């Protein structure tokens, strides 16, 4: 078996066990399980970094597959989670980031072999702006989604006077979830805008995409994102409404991502 395959299997193994451990450790209130799962995720992240770097050096920015892009997104999610865990002391984001990274890594297996060939003169800018700004914004959106999901769950219990599950005793308060949601939305929206704009500028140069449903969907997501950003920044909305909206935007973005790689212009199927 090729060493790259072994490396990728090790990444999937670490992410899967890590995600399972983080979720079970949190629900069962087992700090030792959570710590072990975090270490596994960290190990998976390190191996993943090596794997992605190796592929990048091998194929260069123009020759990377669709699977590579999906894996890069999974890597970004774990990076955001580890950063939030290490510097902000918000380990709860692992509840969503780790399983999503695992799912994305598994999803990338479905796309193996599809290669997205970019024109040489655009590849640097494309990678530097479009991909990275979108991935940062999706990473932020995942944080907002995780915090939003936990906010909605905890808030509905408190509001309706339903006893809280045991595992929530180790989890942060509603205000913390709301603050994470707010920071993630405020920081993520500018990146999403940048990513989308760079895509609109360069995409017509490479292929005809204006009438593509993916573009309409992206614009719709941007509109919702902008609305949420405005509500947070200007009106001072907070709490349940903003949490629900972050969940909805993330849900549509996730669908858009699947759609994107299944039928849209990021897939090789439409490539000449």
């Amino acid at each position: 078996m090729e060493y790259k395959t072994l490396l990728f299997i090790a990444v999937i193994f670490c992410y899967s066990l890590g995600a399972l451990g983080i979720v079970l450790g949190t629900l069962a209130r087992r700090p030792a399980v959570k710590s072990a799962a975090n270490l596994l995720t960290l190990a998976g992240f390190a191996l993943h970094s090596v794997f992605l770097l190796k592929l990048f050096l091998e194929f260069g920015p123009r020759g990377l597959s669709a699977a590579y892009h999906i894996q890069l997104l999974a890597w970004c999610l774990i990076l955001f989670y580890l950063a939030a865990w290490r510097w902000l002391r918000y380990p709860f984001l692992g509840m969503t980031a780790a399983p999503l990274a695992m799912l994305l890594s598994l999803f990338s297996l479905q796309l193996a072999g599809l290669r997205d060939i970019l024109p040489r003169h655009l590849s640097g800018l494309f990678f530097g702006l479009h991909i990275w700004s979108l991935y940062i914004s999706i990473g932020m959106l995942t944080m907002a989604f995780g915090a939003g999901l936990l906010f909605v769950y905890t808030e509905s219990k408190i509001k309706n006077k339903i006893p809280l599950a045991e595992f929530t005793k180790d989890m942060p308060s509603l205000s913390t979830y709301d603050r994470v949601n707010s920071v993630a939305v405020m920081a993520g929206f500018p990146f999403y805008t940048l990513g989308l704009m760079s895509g609109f500028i360069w995409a017509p140069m490479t292929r005809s995409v204006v009438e593509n449903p993916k573009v309409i969907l992206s614009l719709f997501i941007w509109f919702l994102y902008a609305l949420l950003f405005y509500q947070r920044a200007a009106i001072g909305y907070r709490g349940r409404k903003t949490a629900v909206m972050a969940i909805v935007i993330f849900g549509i973005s996730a669908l858009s991502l699947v759609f994107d790689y299944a039928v849209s212009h990021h897939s090789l199927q439409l490539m000449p």
Partner: protein
Amino acid sequence: MDKELYLVGLNYKTAPVEVRERFALSDPALADQTPQDSGVLECMILSTCNRVELVAVGRDKDTPQRLLDFWAEARQEDVSRLKPYVYVHQGPDAVRHLFAVASSLDSMVVGEPQILGQLKDAYRAALEKRNAKTILNRLLHKAFSVAKRVRTETAIASSAVSISYAAVELAKRIFDDMRETHAMLIGAGEMAELAATHLVNSGIASVRVANRTFERALQLAKQYDGEAVHFDELIPQLAKVDIVISSTGAHEPIIRAKDMRAVLRRRKNKPMFFIDIAVPRDIDPDVNSLDNIYLYDIDDLKEVVEENMAHRREEASRGRLIVEEEALAFCTWLKSLELQPTIVDIVRMGESIAKEELERTLKRLGPMPDESQEILRAMLSSVVKKLIHEPITFLKRRSEEDEASERHIVLLRRIFNLDDDRVPDDPHAGRRRKPR
């Protein structure tokens, strides 16, 4: 049987409060009078408002009676008036009971933390009076570690079981940093004041007090190092606070949903937590339907407390399993204590024989270098150790496995003749068949 552990006592389950008062042993002077000279080797007295217990190590089965006599005498009462309310535990049952008490599994409010402190005080008093020795020392240290294990491995003490504390716990689920939250106390009342005290203890930034009588507001504000607010300023002031505890005697709600919409706008939708302890309620229940406002009335809080109590009871059954496991381990150690004199005697006997034989051999061998003598001594010591190893291991194993360790001790003492019994010339003469 050489030493046995006993526990005699009464508690809130077996005795009403009048009896508990009458037989309380909380006077520190009583520790001096523990029945040390009458076969009670070690003794500790635990006396709280819910229980009085004497834990003792005694030589014989009269120990519980001795303890009861001492107890009744100390309270200048007749022992017959005490007996109907008392329980007596011996050996493993006593260990199990004490561990359960230390872990707060036997408390009126399961999981309450005070009992452990009271037990530590009782142990300290026994130590000071030199009433706690080998067995009680080990028993109490073990009881403290069992209590810690039960608290960490179960959720026995994780949820609030008083209304005021439950309110504070809920506030902590809403606000991330209590040091940045501001509270307002509207009206007065024992429970509301208690909740405010809990909030202050949890470190909130400030307390405002609103009361129809401004002087009373000033008085309460002083108590919490806070600020008094005129009652007609109540609604505008709400925009400045995050937690509101209300307990007035008003017959109509004093805070309505329409008032709160404007307050929320001014607060930029920052969350608010209302605790309505008044009956009739001070706060319109519709307030809870507004986003970012959480309203709990007295019934809601009672429900939270009842659920928490039920949860603690569930956790207590897990705690009892830990107690059972630890009590078993302690009793094994206790049993091994019975073996100690026999083991010491066997080792001494072996060493004594080795010493005698070595001296005799050295005399016969004549002058010998020190190094050679040392080698001989080491060899003999090794032979003795190997010879006695198996009988000692057998004794320890039997002691752990069954209840008949005493029989095996006697047997081993007779085999090695550790008690220097004189053996008749023909010990089996009586058993031998007579010739026809």
